[in-house]
């Protein structure tokens, strides 16, 4: 029985997850701290590795303690929770996993808002930390100082909100005077920090309904999602990248990413160039940061377009059936028969390579799969009684589709689209890699990877970092998609 209890304890699973991940990172760092060729130890890497190892061990101990606590008394003792404050220090080593776990451990009765507030704060801190690396450069963008000050103020406010939420949110009841805070939070989301937006909206909803479960579905979905560590980490990385993409307009210098600097060609990673420079002397770090923008835009829009078009076509053919269904679906089958990437290459070759055409090229091929998913959902939903009732009342078809059918069949579409954004990011990069994407000097992850691939042997970091960025983004979307699927599925508890 005890076993079951600690297994179902969120704190325990988070603690376990975070120590394993941290230990893994520590091992990777340890391995890379020793240079096999020169037989020398890299002290800086070694120190970071040891720090990670230390926190991993601490976290392991903590996980053990939580387990014992639960086994003994069925609850985590306050002294154990207090240890979370020590683990908070891991924030300085950039360890998201332990920090998130520690913040959750500290709070005894956590809720959706607390988790969102934690991630709001973490996102802000990470964006500031990454942007602050620019301080080591010979110069920074003109807007750097005001922008970073604003970010600091915003993050300070996010910290205050976290404390307020921790203090004044009890279960489902939010203190009414929190609404200005919520509105401010929504305003701060212009920095791209979508967690702040979510937190603000959540707060407003709770304040408005004052504990009454009027929007059970929304609350339930977010409740489930915030309890899943992997999907929150995925969402964190996406929001973090989005926020970076927005803030980089002001905190990063675009010229560093596009202008050649022949005096700094192929430099290894240093403080001024955290990820090194490429063969044109451009800062790889800045290029990857700016590259996120195109990857996210193309990924998002090339998913949104087929969702809307495919969704509409699927809804119409599913609702009307028979001939309409046959015509639409057979035409889409024709489209489906053409391999997606081939179609994209053909479109790019015909209309030229730029971001807009890239989005169109990647969208067209994805329409049939969305139409099929939507059609299947609509076929199911349109047999439900409430649809029949609406029909019996004489509601117009369009209204029935929009008001009753589409909301009921949207969940699988959302899950599917989060999963395919990842694929779209990869496709964008593949096309750029083949020289069919954006112009080669424009920072885009596929472009950067392509350039790096010719230096795999001598300067492997040129390919590894953009590759990692692509992997992480795709993985994040997949984690989020998985979490969403679980959260939206009524059968899962």
């Amino acid at each position: 029985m005890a076993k079951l209890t600690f297994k179902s304890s969120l704190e325990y699973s988070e603690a376990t997850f975070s120590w394993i991940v941290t230990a893994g990172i520590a091992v990777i760092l340890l391995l890379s701290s020793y240079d096999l060729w020169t037989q020398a130890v890299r002290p800086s890497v070694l120190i970071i590795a040891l720090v990670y190892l230390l926190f991993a061990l601490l976290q392991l101990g903590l996980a053990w303690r939580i387990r014992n606590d639960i086994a003994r008394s069925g609850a985590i003792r306050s002294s154990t929770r207090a240890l979370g404050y020590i683990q908070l220090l891991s924030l300085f080593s950039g360890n998201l996993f332990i920090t998130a776990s520690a913040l959750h451990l500290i709070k005894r009765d956590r809720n959706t808002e607390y988790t969102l507030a934690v991630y709001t704060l973490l996102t802000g801190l990470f964006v500031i930390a990454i942007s602050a690396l620019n301080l080591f450069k010979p110069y920074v963008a003109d807007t750097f100082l005001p922008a970073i000050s604003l970010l600091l103020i915003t993050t300070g406010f996010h910290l205050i909100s976290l404390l307020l939420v921790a203090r004044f949110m009890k279960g489902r009841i939010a203190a009414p005077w929190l609404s200005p805070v919520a509105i401010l939070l929504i305003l701060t989301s212009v920095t791209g920090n979508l967690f702040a937006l979510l937190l603000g909206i959540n707060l407003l909803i709770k304040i408005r309904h004052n504990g009454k479960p009027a929007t059970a579905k929304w609350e339930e979905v977010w409740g489930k999602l915030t309890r899943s560590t992997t999907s929150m980490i995925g969402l964190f990385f996406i929001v973090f990248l989005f926020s970076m993409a927005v803030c980089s307009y002001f905190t990063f210098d675009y010229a560093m990413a596009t202008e050649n600097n022949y005096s700094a060609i192929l430099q290894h990673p240093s403080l001024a160039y955290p990820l090194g420079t490429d063969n044109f002397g451009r800062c790889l770090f800045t290029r990857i940061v700016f590259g996120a923008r195109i990857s996210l835009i193309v990924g998002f829009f090339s998913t949104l377009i087929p969702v809307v078009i495919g969704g509409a076509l699927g809804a119409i053919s599913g609702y009307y059936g028979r001939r309409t269904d046959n015509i639409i679906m057979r035409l889409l089958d024709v489209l489906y028969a053409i391999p997606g990437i081939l179609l994209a290459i053909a479109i790019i070759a015909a209309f030229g390579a730029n971001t807009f055409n890239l989005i169109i090229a990647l969208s067209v091929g994805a329409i049939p799969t969305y139409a099929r998913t939507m059609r299947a959902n609509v076929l199911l939903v349109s047999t439900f009684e409430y649809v029949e009732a609406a029909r019996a009342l004489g509601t117009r078809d369009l209204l029935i589709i929009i008001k009753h059918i589409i909301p009921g069949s949207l969940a699988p579409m959302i899950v599917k689209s989060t999963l395919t954004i990842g694929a779209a990011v990869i496709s964008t990069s593949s096309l750029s890699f083949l020289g069919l994407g954006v112009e080669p000097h424009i920072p885009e992850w596929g472009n950067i990877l392509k350039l790096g691939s010719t230096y795999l042997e001598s300067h492997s970091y040129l390919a590894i970092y953009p590759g990692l960025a692509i992997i992480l983004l795709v993985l994040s979307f997949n984690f989020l998609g998985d979490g969403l699927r679980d959260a939206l599925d009524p059968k899962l508890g």
Partner: protein
Amino acid sequence: MKKISLLALLLTFTLVASACTVKTKSEATEPAANEPSTETVTEAGPVNIELLGIASNESDLNIVRDQLVKNGFTVKLNIQPDYGSFKAQQDAGNYDIAHSGWTTVTGNPDYAVRSLFISGGDYSIQNDPEIDKLINQAATETPEQYKETYKQLEQRLVFDKAYIAPLYISLKSQAVNQDILNADTVRLSKSRALAWESIDFKDTSKRDSDPLILTQTASVLTSLDPIKGNDGSINQLNTNMYVRLINLTDDDQITSDGSLSFNHTIAEGNSEYYFLLRDDISFAKIDNKKAVDTGERVGADDVVFSLNRAKDKDSVPDHRTYSLHEHIKTVEIVTDVASLDSIQSASGGGSVKAALETGLDTGIKELVADKAQADSQAGKYQVIKLTTTEPFPQVLNYLAHQSAGIVSKKQVESINTYDVANFDVNKDIPYGDQNTVTEGAQYNNTLYASGPYILSHKNDYEGIFYKNPGYRKGSEHEPKISTVNVRFIADADSALSALRNSEIHLYYGVPETKYDIVKNDSKLKLQSIESNGVTYLLFNTKNREVASSEALRKAVLYSINQDDILAFYNNNKIKAVSTVSPLVDTGNELVADANKVKEYLNEYHNSK
């Protein structure tokens, strides 16, 4: 709350502290912003330039784009995946500047400018009488004289008119697997294609058992008839399949070594050229996928036939090289020994006969018209006299080019029975058609090779060459290795990988970015030499702003900073001014000048 205020205080402090030390971009670039006339340029708005190039030259395009952008241009890149699409775009005129390259395979400066810049030239889009005059003048001059003429030409072509903007001279480099090949036997020549006959294995006992494995990118061969192609797909192959009257040394001097002639000389007046032919080379053919000696000697009648068809535009359909040989007036067989005695050699020091006899065991006793009669041991020789349309010493360089390769008169006449004017590509099969050597139903190898090797058969993967059994048997020029495989590997990275795992033995044209990898591999030896290949930007001469505005062209020209390019290529490139730069040291140099760019841009804006 106390904690928070403390934190806020700390943050403010760090911010203020950092604000004092952090330099912003405009502070860092302030001095540049204070320069005069910057504002006038920005006021007039950026100038649009469309830059056309091939994806494989992406790095160059990026450097040029970056330099133009930094000088206030707005650059639109038009990058085409391959040369065919690039050419189509160029022909359609969809560019302001096109990234172009030229390699002077003949090693003489006339070839480096004639077809590129003379009005009406094969590849020329220019029309400038002044340039025509200088090119024609230089052609008749000796190296000492033409140095000044080419200097004037560069002045006109680049600095005065800015028809081109030079980028760099490339290095020619090859990597040799020195565990397998004897690296000393692998030649690296400035202009001429790789000579295969000298290459030998480290372990000489493998000469007959193992093939020499080379590589080239193109698997579609333009034509194995030497006059029907002048491109990367066949230059090296045809050079090794057909012997020429003359050869170039590794540093582009004219030599008779390894050619069809014992000796050559120029008669007084620089219009008559004499060649004393060898009698120890026979044609080879392929029989049952084996090279056999036809017993037919390569002689004077073949030379006359080959050179006459080389200069005659209508000798074959789709003749690609006649413009190289347009200076040849007549080619004839000399049978009168006395006539050689009466003419003085241009170099001084005796008659033509004496010059031709230099170093021979047996002097010229008799000249014969029939090649079968020739016998150098007995003093019976064949002599070819070539007359040019005007005094033109550089003609010898053209005779060393693969397109002047000697083919069999008998064999080519028996294959090319079609009527040139009514040639039907679906029905008629010309000599050297690549389909006749490609494995499959159409295979019917009718090649007669006068050079050290002959192509037996090919597919998309490789071409197999065998040693010509009748090529200078027993001499040092007899081909060492019996079989040569030429692998067709389109991708440079794959070719380098193939070299590194010993799949191929020699890789010709290693990219600059891979030099380090080759140098760090102990079994590879990197050889490099300055090449005759020049890369430059060509301005459009039709329907574009750059065509009409000299000032705009000069603004682009002075934006080009060759130091940056050299830095990018790790100094594995050399500065250039024009396509003659590798051949003639004119002393000119292009220096990037941002102030001149502004000046010319202003001039351009004011003229609008």
